[in-house]
């Protein structure tokens, strides 16, 4: 038996989490280094997965399959396609940056008993989330996926509720109240989504008799598993609801601004750049493969909801006074693009959506982490408290600008490629929706540039005047992300090559072919 590489990518951070949590209270720094090493080692494993993966090979590769709970027909089945590989790599790439950026976020205040170890807890929870996210990208058994899709809520909940920005404009007590409100809202939304999905998972089992994605998809394709139209639609809705909460899609998005606003910047990156991708990923992998007919049936409504997400998120981002909430609404707008790309049912759209997941992860991480450094310096999240930062801290301002430009999809930076593909893919099948969605880009330019202008340009505010520029640790975090943004913006081929075959497969699952170009059709 070959080495279980995929299991290792999930087990390693899990072990890292346990080890980090076990570090004695006084050895805080050791815990941080341990967590960083564990996340880097996971990244190395993810690279190994990337190398071993053959884009033109079998659909699911590096597969593992073991009996687990046979009473429920559940198997421990892992396997990755191109989309999964890309997202596993993205996750493993971002976590070391998250850990490094949050280096001092959980240093304990003086309260609490000797056994209270917030630092160890913070980094252990981040690694636990990483392990669960990675295994949900790799699971090819619906039940296995569901377990970790739900279980990851618990460490995230503690990350949001237990750790906030050091300084808060309304004092620590209000901050704690708002934090626990945000954490509870996050958990209840996602738990409700997950429980609705549980009903659908049980329903799927009753219909199909097992949970294996490959088996069910095959049985559906060759007709041996017949699903009544209404059954398929109900099950699809159950699954989609959970993913739409996670992604999040308008009108199920309201937990995200709270969670991102109250969490520290690294945790906010973890949520929006990594965890939310599980939602969009699962739409591609589970909704489209298991319920192709229902997916087509629901497409018009989902496209409209995605369109609303794009415009509504962008409009609200323009009106935000809080930097992190602004990025949250911008993310809602971007998730609208991703979902639109998935349900446009064209290969450009879906390739674009997958690329978008990767690029959005990197660009949001860059923007939000720099924003986090900014906020930790001034002790405020309000845009109005800043001004003229570029004179005081030019490197910080410059990296912030690049992150912002990536967010508005400037050509030459990575997100442009994916946004363009999504729009083209949507336009070929649904021209009207494609055209309206384009306005989202205009609004993106507005909120990003206004944010930059208000915080970085203008006269230097007195509280900002002594602001130090980026430190070495912070540069180590930001520089690689910016290099990646530029590299993938100029040369997206490596990622596209991995993703495209998997997208073609998914397209054939839903029995869709790209619409022929008009000229050719006219012939």
């Amino acid at each position, binding site marked *: 038996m070959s080495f279980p590489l995929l299991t290792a990518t999930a087990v390693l951070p899990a072990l890292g989490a346990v080890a980090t949590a076990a570090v004695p209270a006084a050895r805080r720094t050791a815990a941080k280094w341990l967590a960083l090493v564990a996340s880097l080692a996971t990244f190395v494993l993810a690279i190994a997965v990337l190398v071993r993966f053959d884009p033109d090979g079998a659909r699911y590769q590096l597969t593992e399959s073991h*009996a*687990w*709970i*046979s*009473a*429920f027909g559940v198997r421990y089945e892992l396997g990755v396609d191109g989309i999964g590989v890309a997202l596993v790599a993205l996750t493993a790439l971002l976590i070391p940056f998250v850990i490094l950026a949050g280096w001092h976020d959980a240093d304990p205040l003086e*309260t*609490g*008993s000797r*056994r*209270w*170890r917030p630092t160890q807890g913070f980094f252990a929870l981040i690694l636990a989330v990483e392990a669960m996210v990675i295994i949900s990208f790799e699971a090819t058994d619906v039940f296995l996926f*569901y*377990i*970790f899709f*739900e*279980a990851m*809520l*618990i460490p995230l*909940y*503690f990350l949001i*509720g*237990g750790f906030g920005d050091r300084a808060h404009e309304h004092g620590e*007590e209000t901050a*704690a109240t708002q*934090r*626990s409100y945000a*954490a*509870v809202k996050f*958990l*209840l939304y996602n*738990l*409700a989504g997950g*429980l*609705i999905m*549980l*009903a659908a998972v*049980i*329903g799927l*089992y*009753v219909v199909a008799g097992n949970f294996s994605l490959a088996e069910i998809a095959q049985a559906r394709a060759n007709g041996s598993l017949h699903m009544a139209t209404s059954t398929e639609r109900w099950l699809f809705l159950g699954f989609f609801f959970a993913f739409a909460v996670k992604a999040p899609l308008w009108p199920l998005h309201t937990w995200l601004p709270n969670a991102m606003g109250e969490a520290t910047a690294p945790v906010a990156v973890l949520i929006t750049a990594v965890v939310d991708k599980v939602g969009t990923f699962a739409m591609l992998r589970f909704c489209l493969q298991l319920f192709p007919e229902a997916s087509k049936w629901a497409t018009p409504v989902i496209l409209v909801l995605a369109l609303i997400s794009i415009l509504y998120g962008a409009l609200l981002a323009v009106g935000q006074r809080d930097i992190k909430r602004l990025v949250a609404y911008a993310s809602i707008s971007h998730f609208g693009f991703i979902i639109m790309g998935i349900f446009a049912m064209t290969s450009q759209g879906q390739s674009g959506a997958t690329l978008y997941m990767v690029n959005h992860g990197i660009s949001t991480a860059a923007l939000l982490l720099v924003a986090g450094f900014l906020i930790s310096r001034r002790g405020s999240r309000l845009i109005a408290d800043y001004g003229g930062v570029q004179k005081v801290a030019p490197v910080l301002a410059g990296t912030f600008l690049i992150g912002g430009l990536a967010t508005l999809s400037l050509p030459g930076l990575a997100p442009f490629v994916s946004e363009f593909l999504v729009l083209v893919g949507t336009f070929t099948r649904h021209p009207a929706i494609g055209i309206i969605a384009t306005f989202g880009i205009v609004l993106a330019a507005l909120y990003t540039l206004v944010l930059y202008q208000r915080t970085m340009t203008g006269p230097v505010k007195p509280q900002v005047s002594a602001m130090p520029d980026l430190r070495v640790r912070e540069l180590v975090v930001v520089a690689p992300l910016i290099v990646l943004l530029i590299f993938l913006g100029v040369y997206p081929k490596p990622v596209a090559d991995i993703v495209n075959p998997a997208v073609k497969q998914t397209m054939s699952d839903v029995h869709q072919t790209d619409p022929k170009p008009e000229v050719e059709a006219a012939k």
Partner: protein
Amino acid sequence: MSAAVVHSLWTTAADPISKIGAPKIEYGQLSPTLIVVGAAVVGVLIEAFIPRRSRYYAQVFVSVVALAAAFAAVVALAADGYGTTKAHIAAMGAIAVDGPSLFLQGTILLAGLVGLFTFAERRLDPAAHGNRVDSFAAQASAVPGSDAEKAAVKAGFTTTEVFPLLLFAVAGMLIFPSANDLLTLFVALEVFSLPLYLLCALARRKRLMSQEAAVKYFLLGAFASAFTLFGIALLYGYAGSVSYATIAQVVEGNVPNVDPALANTMGNDALLLVGAAMVVMGLLFKVGAIPFHMWTPDVYQGAPTPVTGFMAAATKVAAFGALLRLLYVVLPGMRWDWRPVMWGVAILTMLGGAIVAITQTDIKRLLAYSSIAHAGFILAGVIATSKDGVSSVLFYLAAYSFVTIGAFAVVTLVRDAGGEATHLSKWAGLGRRSPLVAAVFAVFLLAFAGIPLTSGFAGKFAVFKAAAEGGAVPLVVIGVISSAVAAFFYIRVIVLMFFSEPRPEGPTVAVPSPLTMTAIGVGVAVTVVLGVAPQYFLDLANQAGVFVR
């Protein structure tokens, strides 16, 4: 006329009583119950003859040995095949020895053993006048606040009677799910209920509340028992027998031989419907299903916490076992009649328990409403009327009982000057003061909420799957919705423990003896093992899922 002739005017000579055969009792197969009853009797003798200072040790020793031995007997019987191939009806038709019986008996015995550890805990309360004391009143007969009570406390009395009471209750619970005729069912019901009424009244602190709880429990329990008994009478009138097998036959329409005395009533469906409803009502009272749940919060709150934990776990196991047997063995022929009613009860119980729990401010009351909601989830499995339904309920009960005992054991640890600090506001910031205790309690809460990788999820999935396969899809949907509602209040406690600032005058966490630690440790271990690798136990429950008829 001779006297004999006169006598013959109003009497007839019966056949001479030839021989009353001695009943055939399979002692070996009944050994689990017999061991526990025997030990309980020994416990009573210990109270009478052993000096006061050694009673505690003698009682704990006898009880632990008895429960362990009874569990070993259950395992031996199961290994011998009595759960599967050799399942049969023992003791002249009174007791069924089959898979569900043995599985539930094993669960009850283990729950009893773990519960016993929490009963025997003597390190939590500060020593009174140099004597280590437990959670039970110094002298139950002393009026609260009286001089007699003070004298009893000063003399260091403890109520070691709780151990034989616990054993009697366990003995009744062992018979309850395996009773195979209605009279045995009723006797078992009373055998385990009466000790529980007493135990509820024995709290060392807040004695008035404890006695109030016991009176409420007793009165309502007596009503429920009366209903059950009346129902049994009606069913006898309907079937001419109290035996499960005979009643089932009559329900299905083959009346073997009509008793002339009952010729007018036998086969009368009105008697069947009313009688069955009344018996089921008595059982639903014991499991705490809405609308028969009114006693639950008050009794859970007032009873000494170790008793609450034991009662919440073991009573539910025993009562659901009896309910399953009644519905699956006696009344399958009228499932089209009882299923809609049980649907209604299950929906009410799930939603009602979850919604009312939201407003609770006392941790014990909160857990009481949570137990009501769980009764609703289990009912969803009962309604499935399939083999999967049986095994999923068995699994759920095993998973649930250890979480419950563990959770209540944690409640006993959080104390302030007035004893246990059960008001939720006092739990604020517990995670900062005692991260380990708070984390353990969080694990139990997550298991109650049914989060994946805990036993609660595996159990919930099993019953919902069985219900969905049995066609009760709307029930499953309502089940997941009430799970979402229930999650809210479990999460609220976690928020309170971890994200709220500790109060300056907050409670302290007592360091327990290894006894309570074992109870909590077993709870955590079972929660995790049944959550991550439930296969073995699901198989066990699956093998045990067939009733003998």
